[in-house]
């Protein structure tokens, strides 16, 4: 609901409705700004999924905003993964620099995992629990957007178990390509209920037929449902906040709340993954 409200009231109604309906003279242009720079910071992206595969960790560095999108991988880090069943392993770096993979520890519903990354003389630690029970992904369907008859939106259905604290992240793929919009959802307002959630993507206004924010009849639509713990939810919620609100002069942006200690950017997410694919009717 928070996402729904947020999108409807700021994104659709606030500047857009008034500016477009009344004035229609608003305009955009690319500007050159004198942006500040900062020293490169470590970014950790770590996932452990209940899909029978080992833990995957990616380490890279941030870069200045005006540079090209080349993010230096971080090699030679010492990464260990422990679970609350006594398991402990060291991840090995793969042939791709900055990519690390585990060995025997697997993602199991109900287990808590501790990931420790040591690089450049600093250690960063995060704990993530793979939620139990895993909430089934009941249904994937589509509907026409209420804002116009042309846009098709994905709708996901699930039943939230009673008791607060269940958190989810949805990701959407159009013809195999990942949409940038992240859909974090928790049960603060929907505890114990059947939920039918519309995935409202960030854009969709362009005429480009290949726009990932669009869906057209005949598309292959894949949606991934993750059960995540509250720490990971908080990361994706705050990440989503800076990704979605930077169009309006609203909230002062801040870096997402990482679950790593030590000041690293990024997250460690032990989660379930349930996937549904349909052909858009």
């Amino acid at each position, binding site marked *: 609901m928070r996402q729904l*409200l947020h999108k409807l009231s700021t994104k659709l109604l606030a*500047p857009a409705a008034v500016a477009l309906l009344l004035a229609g003279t608003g305009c955009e242009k690319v500007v050159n700004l004198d942006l*500040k720079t900062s020293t490169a*910071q470590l970014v950790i992206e770590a996932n452990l999924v209940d899909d029978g595969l080992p833990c995957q960790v990616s380490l890279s560095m941030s870069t200045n905003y005006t540079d090209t999108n080349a993010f230096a991988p971080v090699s030679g880090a010492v990464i260990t993964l422990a679970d609350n069943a006594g398991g402990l392993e060291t991840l090995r770096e793969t042939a791709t620099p900055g990519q690390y993979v585990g060995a025997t520890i697997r993602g199991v519903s109900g287990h808590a995992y501790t990931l420790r990354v040591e690089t450049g003389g600093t250690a960063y630690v995060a704990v993530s629990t793979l939620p139990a029970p895993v909430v089934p992904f009941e249904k994937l369907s589509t509907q026409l957007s209420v804002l116009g008859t042309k846009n098709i939106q994905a709708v996901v259905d699930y039943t939230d178990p009673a008791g607060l604290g269940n958190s989810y992240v949805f990701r959407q793929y159009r013809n195999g390509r990942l949409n940038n919009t992240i859909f974090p959802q928790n049960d603060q307002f929907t505890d114990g209920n059947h939920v039918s959630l519309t995935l409202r993507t960030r854009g969709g206004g362009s005429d480009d037929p290949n726009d990932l924010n669009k869906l057209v009849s005949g598309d292959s639509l894949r949606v991934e449902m993750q059960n995540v713990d509250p720490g990971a939810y908080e990361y994706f919620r705050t990440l989503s906040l800076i990704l979605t609100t930077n169009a309006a002069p609203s*909230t002062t942006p801040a870096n997402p709340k990482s679950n790593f200690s030590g000041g690293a950017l990024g997250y460690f997410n032990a989660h379930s993954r349930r996937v549904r694919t349909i052909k858009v009717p």
Partner: protein
Amino acid sequence: MQKHVYPFGLWLLVLLWLAQQPALAQTRITLSGTVQDATSGENLTGATVRVRELPGVGTGANAYGFYTLTVPAGTYTLEASFVGYATQTRALTASASQRLDFRLKPGGSELNEVVVTGRSTDATLSKAQMGVETLDLRQIAKVPVLFGEKDVIKTLTLLPGIKSAGEGSSGFSVRGGAVDQNLILLDEAPVYNASHLLGFFSTFNSDAIKDLTVFKGGMPAQYGGRLSSVVDIKMKDGNNQQLHGSGGIGLIASRLALEGPITKDKGSFLVTARRTYADLFLKLSKNETTKNSSLYFYDVNAKANYVLSDRNRLYFSAYLGRDALGLANTFGQYYGNKTATLRLNHLFSDRVFSNTSLIFSKYDYEIDITSNAQNFVIKSKIQDLNLKQDFEFTPSATQTLRFGAQAIYHTITPGYVTADAGSSVNGTADKTNYSLETAAYVSHEWQAAPRLNFTTGLRLSGFSLLGPGTYSTYATDGTVLAGTTYGKGEFLKTYVRLEPRFAASFQLNEASSLKAGYARNVQNLHLLSNSSTSLPTDLYVPTTFNVKPETSDQVSAGYYRTLGQDKTYSLTVETYYKALNNQIDYRDGTQLRGNFDVEASLLYGIGRAYGIEFLVRKDVGRFTGWLGYTLSKSERQFAEINGGTWFNARQDRPNDLSIVAIYQLNSKWSFSGTFLASTGNAVTYPVGKYMVAGQVVSLYGQRNADRLPGYRRLDLGATYEKPHQEGHRFHSSWSFSVYNALGRENPYSIRFQADPNDATRTQAVQTALFRTIPSATYNFSF
């Protein structure tokens, strides 16, 4: 609390004693009465009444047009004057107190034909009050505005020290304060959300407004409750001589007003209404969704007054405004203010004026959502019941004593959800909170010597959080430590604060004076908004166990002088330093929307603001207007933000220039222009970027360390008044305006995104809300 009350009471006694002294000294008489417009009967607030034979002896009519002057018995010429009106004199030999009412004839339209006095520049020079500006609606009517919709709040931001929160926003910042630190009063009733259509228009229909006074600092002790400013907006009383109507048809809205006598000379009424009609165009759309959407606002102002007797006059004013934003049958947002004020003026004697006000104010919003079986309603409101008693005692020509008390009962309901049975959304608890805000004040205006004036005041303010309710305590990271539930009628927590106010002026010569002042202000209602645009869902929270009263201490000094022949120009230079305490901000990543335990997300810190303001103003002649320039700084410090170092407040805009010019070419045509130039708001830009979750994400550093590009805008206006036909009551005029005549794309926001043409790069995209917007309005009156 006891230790505060004692000196307060003592102080009051001393003042009363002081005030009594001159009256006892010799045989004195009191001349009193009202100053009103001869054609409409409107009270002329601020009109000057002087005794020609006694230089320096004069007074200003109060908000109800009442004046009182105590002088030795003798033969005098009494002179009443007001800007835009012909001065009136009355010769009299007075051996006993008497009542003298003045009815001044407007001289505004027949320029140069009658002697029209300037703004009471003499009073401005001599009075100790500083940081105050008045806008007369007749004066600002010709200032060009967005969509041709006259807007007092937008015009207000053209004064130095007052800055608009942003393009298309009704919010404003006074001397570096936050948007919620302004007390906006409409006939004494606080207006909690002064914006229509998300801020593109203010809630005030200028047809209903007489004048507006803004205190930027050093507000007199009768005002309190907000840190930065008081914007005191007075509605017209209505014509008590003749029935008149007026109206206008504009690009956005149409207006209609009717005013006339209830009983000639005794009572009058005024009703004004306005509604937008953008939604009528929506109906023309072929798109079903657009067709079934709504987007409109309306507002109604009504006022009536009646002279019950020589000593009693009753006023009733009311306001109702509503906005609706609806999207087909899926989303509806409705919000608005309602206010009502019942006032009784009573003269205890010709030297003691009293006003009793009973005030109601309510702001509420409702959001209806129907989507995928998520059917629910969110409601929120803030409501005040306010009883206020003010006394004005004028013991002698050199002293005025004001004292009074006030009690406001606040009911605040933060947004709560009511869901349909079967909806996937659950209802949430109604966490309505109750509080009582009380104040007592005394303020003493004293002309100690012909050139030396003092205003000394003290305000004692209390704030009590009342039961029932559940309140939590929080750990430093915002997690709830404990919650306690309290019963009805319990006083949960009371804060008492003393607010001293002091101002002094020394008149250097005929044409110039120096002033200095100090004021403390306390604020107990806090608006939580983490956005620069004012949203209808912005939330007020009261002072609680965790949220402490905000305070500000401001010292200011100024230089005032009149320039040119006949004192046609006035120059004001004021400088200030303000220290702010218990300021509120949010933890990073806080989402206020749908956040029903917002206290957990709050941070508390301090602030400082300082600056210098220059204003050159010309209020008489064919050419009128002003030039204002402000150089200022506004900073905040929070332990949890930017490592505890000082950072720029969002509203920090060091340079701010505004020029307003109106030229009356002849009786038909007048032209106007405004020019604004300012530094951009303090914002947070990325300092880097990184790859996460399959996309490039901005890396942020220090908060508000960057600035939007500068802002510049030129607006032009022209008014054509159809020559008045003899014997006809019907007048009409056309107003034309061009907003942003230079077509400059002023930055509204900047977003950072992937370059759509080059996947290896990112870019900054600036959004401008408006390029050039021409508009025309047809106005009529009869």
